């Protein structure tokens, strides 16, 4: 048998054979606009939301939570409108997940007030006694590191200027530290005194939670 005594030819032929399916199902779709459509109603993350997303990534939240609602009746009933490709145009990496130990989060934004999240992150068991989610109260003890925020948004291609990024961070800080912030009591409860006037990792991840599915919901509300 010819090819079984020619290792280099064998390797080249193997490469060709594995590349056929790869080209058709992976490389070609990369070049098709229909695979990753972009729509104007979907807005990129703000710098703070992106920092929150990076904390979600760091903590491996995707190991238990999905972010795709499938077009199935009970799924839409449970979570809301099913997910569309254009919603993920700014997701690098994607965070669809593969296992639902916890519920899907793709329609979480706006479902609960910030105070709910502060309380829940601090101690999921205080709200759902039998929940197996790890507590994340320690996020509130970490000052949010924004030193790379501008670099991150520009690598992501969100198109913000450095000034805009600073403004977004300052605005969000002003919002959550204001005396009339609707979730002030709970935030103060979970945040150490010395950080109450600053942005914490907890603030950022909650900003991200509230962004999830928000654009779709405002589109629906505007109809």
């Amino acid at each position: 048998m010819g090819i079984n005594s020619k290792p280099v030819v064998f390797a080249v032929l193997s490469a060709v054979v594995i590349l056929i399916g790869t080209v058709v199902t992976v490389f070609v779709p990369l070049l098709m606009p229909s695979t990753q459509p972009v729509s104007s109603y979907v807005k990129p993350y703000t710098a703070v939301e992106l920092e929150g997303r990076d904390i979600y990534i760091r903590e491996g939240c995707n190991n238990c939570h999905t972010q795709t609602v499938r077009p199935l009746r009970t799924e839409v009933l449970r979570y809301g409108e099913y997910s569309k490709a254009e919603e993920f145009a700014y997701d690098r990496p994607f965070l669809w997940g593969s296992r639902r130990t916890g519920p899907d989060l793709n329609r979480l934004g706006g479902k609960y007030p910030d105070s709910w999240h502060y309380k829940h992150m601090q101690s999921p068991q205080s709200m759902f006694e039998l929940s197996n989610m790890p507590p994340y109260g320690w996020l509130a003890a970490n000052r949010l590191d924004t030193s790379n925020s501008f670099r991150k948004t520009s690598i992501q291609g969100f198109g913000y200027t450095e000034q805009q990024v600073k403004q977004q961070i300052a605005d969000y800080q002003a919002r959550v530290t204001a005396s009339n912030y609707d979730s002030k009591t709970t935030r103060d409860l979970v945040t150490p005194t010395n950080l109450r006037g600053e942005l914490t990792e907890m603030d950022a991840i909650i900003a991200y939670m509230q962004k999830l599915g928000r654009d779709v919901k405002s589109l629906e509300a505007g109809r």
Partner: protein
Amino acid sequence: MKDNGYEYSVVRGFAFSALFWLVVGLIVGLWIAFEMFNPALNITPWLSFGRLRVVHTNGLGLGFGLAGIFATSYYMLQRLTRTPLPFPKLAKVHLWLFNAAIALAAISLMAGMNTTKEYAELEWPLDIGVVILWVMFAVNVFAILIKRREKQMYISLWYLIAMTVTIAVLYIVNNLEVPVTLFKSYSIYAGANDANVEWWYAHNIVGFIFTVPVLAMFYYFLPKATGLPIYSHRLSIVSFWSLIFAYLWTGAHHLMLTPLPEWIQTVAIAFSIFLIAPSWGSVMNGYYTLQGNWEQMRSNYLAKFFILGITFYGLQTLQGPLQGLRTLNAFFHYTDWVVGHVHMGTMGWVTMIISASFYYMIPKITGREIYSIRLANVHFWFILAGQLVWTITMWIGGIQQGAMWKATNPDGSLMYSFLDGLTSLYPYYRIRFAGGVVYFIGILIFGWNLIQTVRQRPATAEA
């Protein structure tokens, strides 16, 4: 000595590295299995489920799996080509760098440096390290094949060539990322494309680490351990080429009913069903090899490992395509059913075959007899029982959860909250943990048996 100049110290080094990472990975596995029904074990951020789960998967997939593959590959390559390793020093550096990389991988993942792309979670400096390690391995693979003294390349070598080429393509394409800092990067792909690239990678990394090289071991060590030639050479040719062709089309069955374009999902379903044929080609080749000699299941402890291993491979490759079907997937996806599926492959097929290969290989390279066949039998029954309890429990739990997610009241409203579905699984999680403990004891016996084997005095000089 008949082993003129063969390099076996690297084989031995990788074999015991595999054993070490297997034990570490299983301890982490038990830890997170406990966290699933008792979150109090999430003591510090470093030990929280979200970070530890990837230490478990990477530690076992990359640490145990790859080390086992390198050990057996360096052995099979030399034996099947009747040629000593061309660059033994390179292989030794490979061994040390490999272990350093796995240790760094575990630490960095616990520290939260994690790209989230499954089985590709390592951050970019480690990705570069992995590519360098792979090149170091590939140099020896191709050099020995070119220098070989045996003209025909045996089946196992085909699988090793396919693995060497494919892993390189998969790893590089999926890990293309833009660094933000030394410890952080962003994928160059976005959204649906990122998902498509990732699951093409993830499905095939499983295929080309947990299937292809393990089949190489199976085709080599089964005939060696039983003294029986492989049933059909022709069947193995057909199985090989159709397997490596079809595998790469099927990644999107992991993305059923997501926003990925429907045609990619449908193509993946079709090729998944097709994959049953080459998979079962190898299963049948294994069964027929024992034709007329089935008494070896009683008389030869290694035959049990190989035949049960290939049986779980056969079940795995039936279950996989079936749960990829759209309607079944709508029910099973995101539940513990899939977790059970994966663990039948890893705990049943991969570990069974690597165990048996080591039992055959370690005595050969050290000139000693296996320490205890009796302990090997105990090891076999523990990992078999542990795995069955583990996987069957997860299948039942998965069916239950899938049903509870779908259940509606007569008025059309949902019958159960999400939390109802989760908490109903806790009894299963406890049983799963117990199954894991049984399995872990089996692995400890395996390790003990191998360590005692190499600690013995060498058997009276081999003729």
